């Protein structure tokens, strides 16, 4: 398997883990919308982003990013909290828990393989147009949609 195929294979593991997590926890079926290796995109503006560092032979950072409204809807379906009553803390914990479950699922699948990894705790930031700058960076991006919800998954190898 070449490097590009390997990146795509691992990316799809994370993508399917995301779809499984969201349908299980929120009852929302996400459709694959876009997939790209070596993306040059920056994230959309006005996003909430959950992150985890994947430490292993291929160290990387996993990002899940969604608009505030999209995330509020997902967290509403997960918890039963009305989206109008949702606090920033609820949203932070929601995206943090999603990224934690997605990374945890793939970690188990890859345990014992040459691409196995350990995880940090999830962390979250909010803001516009964050850019990751590193000359040798490689990565994977996929977007998912369901009705008004769009969520971006990005893996940046560091």
């Amino acid at each position, binding site marked *: 398997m070449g490097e590009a195929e390997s990146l795509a294979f691992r990316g799809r593991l994370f993508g399917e883990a995301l779809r*499984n*997590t969201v349908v*299980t*926890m929120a009852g929302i079926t996400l459709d694959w919308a876009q997939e790209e290796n070596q993306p040059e995109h920056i994230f959309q503006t006005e996003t909430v982003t959950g992150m985890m560092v994947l430490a292993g032979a291929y160290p990387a950072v996993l990002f899940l990013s969604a608009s505030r409204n999209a995330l509020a809807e997902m*967290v509403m379906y*997960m*918890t*039963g*909290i009305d989206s109008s009553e949702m606090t920033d*803390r*609820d949203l932070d*914990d*929601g995206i*943090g*828990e999603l990224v*934690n*479950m997605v*990374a*945890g*699922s793939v*970690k*188990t699948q890859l*345990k014992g393989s040459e691409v196995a990894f350990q*995880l940090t*705790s999830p962390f979250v930031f909010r803001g516009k147009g964050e850019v990751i700058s590193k000359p040798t960076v490689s990565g994977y991006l996929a977007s998912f949609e369901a009705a008004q919800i769009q969520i971006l998954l990005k893996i940046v190898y560091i």
Partner: protein
Amino acid sequence: MPERGSHNMRMMTVDDSSVIRKIIRSAADVLEFELVEAEDGFAALKKLDDCSGKIDLILLDWNMPGINGYEVLQKIKQNPSYQRIPVMMVTTESHKENIVQAIQAGADHYMIKPFTMEELTKKIMECLGKGAI
């Protein structure tokens, strides 16, 4: 309303994620259980002391800041006052080694995130020896 002995069922959730605690609160509401919430291991051990261990079931996350869930589990199961309390690990740690490790430390049940509300309530009832609801 489910009861054990002379008091209503009381469950404790130990998870640093408020979202998971809210999901477990929804399950507790469905089951008409009281719920004690702790956002980390230290708070859990203090709340156990505060209520003299009068808890029927503990749902325990594994990865938490400070003292992790595995260490909390060991402390609970090594304490004669609390070791009778059933503990269900609720975690993303789904590898067989983790499950065996938790069971060897005294965990009674193991639930892997993500889960549906139906799976959660069913598992809670199983932990309490009440079978499916």
